[in-house]
């Protein structure tokens, strides 16, 4: 199915009784690994008396890739999934999220940073995704390198956490439970890429107009929508798992004017920047994709495509960013 921006926001069910039943069903379903995707909708509790059969059949794709045909009246909407801490820790079954960054397309527009900050209600100088001016040697060409969290498959950060506050999910995402983090910052010391930020104070680098945590309208805190800016805890790029559940792309990807960032699922072997969709394996093969500092053995889930045949000539950044705290 590929991950697409879900333009059609389906209205929520107005049936109070059935929504309770559905929530319970979903909880069980998710726990049993039967979580349902996104863009398609979900099946209401079978046997619920209030459920009206319409006679009209629709096709629904489940998370583990099964296409099932159900009555339209049985289809509910994922907006109501209550993501408990346990569900957030387990991740989305059957997925292996991955990012590909095409260095040939990056012109240091810094829109990914802005999009991310807006999405997570952060303000400069805190950047969950950074854009670095890289030059491997004096005699080699400079290039811009967007750098999110690499969501490593052998993550040095989760290994050192004394309380399991940061953890690796089955869908490849590394998250932080800000309600559990003790703020020892060992994970920050252990991350060789400095992907992590710390909330040094209350409302540290938080947008003033921010009334709710990321994931609009969400009020229950869980590691997936994040409880940003819990003073004294660590935070970082989270690959927007709440968006992924809705079938939407992370904001850094959609904010990039040049289509530099691709997000997708390694199990589906596809990545997209919202416009172009590629086979992950072919893209990496054809464009000689690599992972940054492979020799560290962290096995990042972020691939880079070398800055060859660039879309833009390299221009020095004349603007100074983040000069103030």
């Amino acid at each position, binding site marked *: 199915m590929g991950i697409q921006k879900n333009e059609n926001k389906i209205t929520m069910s107005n049936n109070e009784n059935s929504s309770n039943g559905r929530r319970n069903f979903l909880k069980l379903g998710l726990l049993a690994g039967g979580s349902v995707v996104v863009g398609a909708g979900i099946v209401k509790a079978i046997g619920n008396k209030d459920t009206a059969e319409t006679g009209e059949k629709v096709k629904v794709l489940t998370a583990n890739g099964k296409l099932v045909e159900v009555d339209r009246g049985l289809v509910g909407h994922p907006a109501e999934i209550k993501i408990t801490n346990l569900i957030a820790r387990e991740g989305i079954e059957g997925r292996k999220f991955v990012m590909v960054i095409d260095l040939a397309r990056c012109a240091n527009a810094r829109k990914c940073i802005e999009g991310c900050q807006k999405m997570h209600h952060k303000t400069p*100088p*805190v*950047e969950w995704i*950074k*854009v*670095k*001016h*890289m030059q491997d040697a004096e005699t080699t060409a400079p290039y811009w390198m967007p*750098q999110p969290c690499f969501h490593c498959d052998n993550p*040095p950060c989760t*290994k*050192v*956490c*004394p*309380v*399991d*506050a940061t953890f690796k999910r089955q869908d490849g995402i590394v998250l932080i439970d800000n309600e*559990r*983090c*003790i*703020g*020892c*910052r*060992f994970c*920050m*010391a*252990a991350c*060789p*890429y*400095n992907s*992590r*930020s*710390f*909330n*040094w*104070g*209350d409302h*540290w680098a938080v947008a003033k107009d921010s009334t709710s945590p990321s994931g609009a309208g969400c009020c229950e805190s869980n590691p997936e929508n994040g409880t940003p800016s819990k*003073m*004294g*805890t*660590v935070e970082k790029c989270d690959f927007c798992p709440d968006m992924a559940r809705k079938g939407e792309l992370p904001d850094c990807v959609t904010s990039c004017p040049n289509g530099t960032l691709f997000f997708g699922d390694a199990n589906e072997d596809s990545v997209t920047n919202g416009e172009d969709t590629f086979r992950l394996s072919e893209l990496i093969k054809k464009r000689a994709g690599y992972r940054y*500092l492979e020799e*560290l053995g*962290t096995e990042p889930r972020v691939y880079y495509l070398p800055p060859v045949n660039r879309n833009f000539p390299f221009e020095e950044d004349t603007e100074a*960013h*983040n*000069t*103030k*705290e």
Partner: protein
Amino acid sequence: MEKNIHHTAHHSEHTPAEEIAMRREMRDDVLRPIRHTSLLGKLWIATLLVVIGIGCYAYYIQLTNGLKVTSLRDYASWGLYISNFVFFVAISLVGALISSVLRLTNFEWHRPLTRVAEIIAVAGIMFAGLIIIIDMGRPERLLNIFIHGRIQSPIVWDVIVVSTYLVTSVLFLYFPLLPAIALCRDELTDKPKWQRWLYKVLALGWDGNEKQWKLMKKCVSILSVLVIPLAISIHTVTAWLFATTLRPGWDSTNFGPYFVAGAFQAGTACVIIAMFVFSRAYNLKKYLTDLHFDRMGKLLVFLCLVYAYFNVNEYLVPAFKMREAEANLLNDLFSGPFSKVYWPVQIFGMALPAILLLFRKMRRPLPITIIALFVVVGAWLKRYLIVTPIMLHPYLPIQNVPANWASYFPSWVEISIVSASLAGVLLIITLFSKLFPMISIWETMEGEGIDLEEMDNQNNK
């Protein structure tokens, strides 16, 4: 073990009457500082309390505002607190060295030094635990380590070994102290009620009978063996907090022994300073003699050389290769902004002491104490050099951050809290010395061939 020491100790050349007189004299000498506190002593305690008071206020500021009141930011996310933690763990190792290694290897001169070394160990490890809590962003969630603790995290290993070492060190201080507490209980009857009550409770009914002596000595023997692997573990695990990461400068297989070697060097220098202060302030020159300073000087030469050996491995071997990530760091240490600290620390804190202390005159009490001061200050700064420059030299360049994120110098809050922690260590040592004798009578007299156990046995008959 005990028998062994007994046999190697030279037999008493004194008559029983002389022995009793010597014991009485030593009792008076070690109890004198507890009986009276000089004005200078009171001023010293007051000063320490003021420093601790300022530190408590600074911590209150930090608790209410968060760690933003420190100079720590996303790149230098560990700083003064962590380097101070490493320093405290380091000096705490000396308890094991003096009271245990020298004891098991039959270096008789260690006897009057055991208590000084052991109280430094206990105070150091206590404040190491405290400073690490101060470094936490959410200290109120400390219990999460026990509720959600994961054995794979080196922090959990550290919690286990530090708490075990603390308990072992307290017992290792306490058991040999029992006869002295009983002495205080019996002799210091003019002290306030709470103090007499303290002696009575802590003495555990000690009356010097045969069974008590045997049991105490057996416990001390067991602890003296147990404490060595524990001491090595605490500092090795502390080294692993850094060495288990992939950061250039910490990613080193040399780190465990490098830390342990540095710890013995720093701790020995601390004991020398403490010996000087106690021998002068408490008039204990009779027991902490020039010979002890001389021997400690020789020991310090040896430890400086061992530490220098590990430094060569730690800095010069990577410097020979100059792999890019390490080269950035090493250039900064050797000739960049950190060189102003690096070279003085290596020269005045390690190389020069090793050379100077080869000369007998330099091992006399005053010169060796000055040299030891340099070693201790150097050791403290060295921990800063082990933590901060590495954090500021990551693989990916530090770009697009405010200027104060790309450098680190501790804020007044950090400096106040760390000063308070250092004052706290000194206060614990001072207060201990105002409550209990700083020289172990039975251990020292045993070194003279006088067995207090035998004397007590005869008295009890």
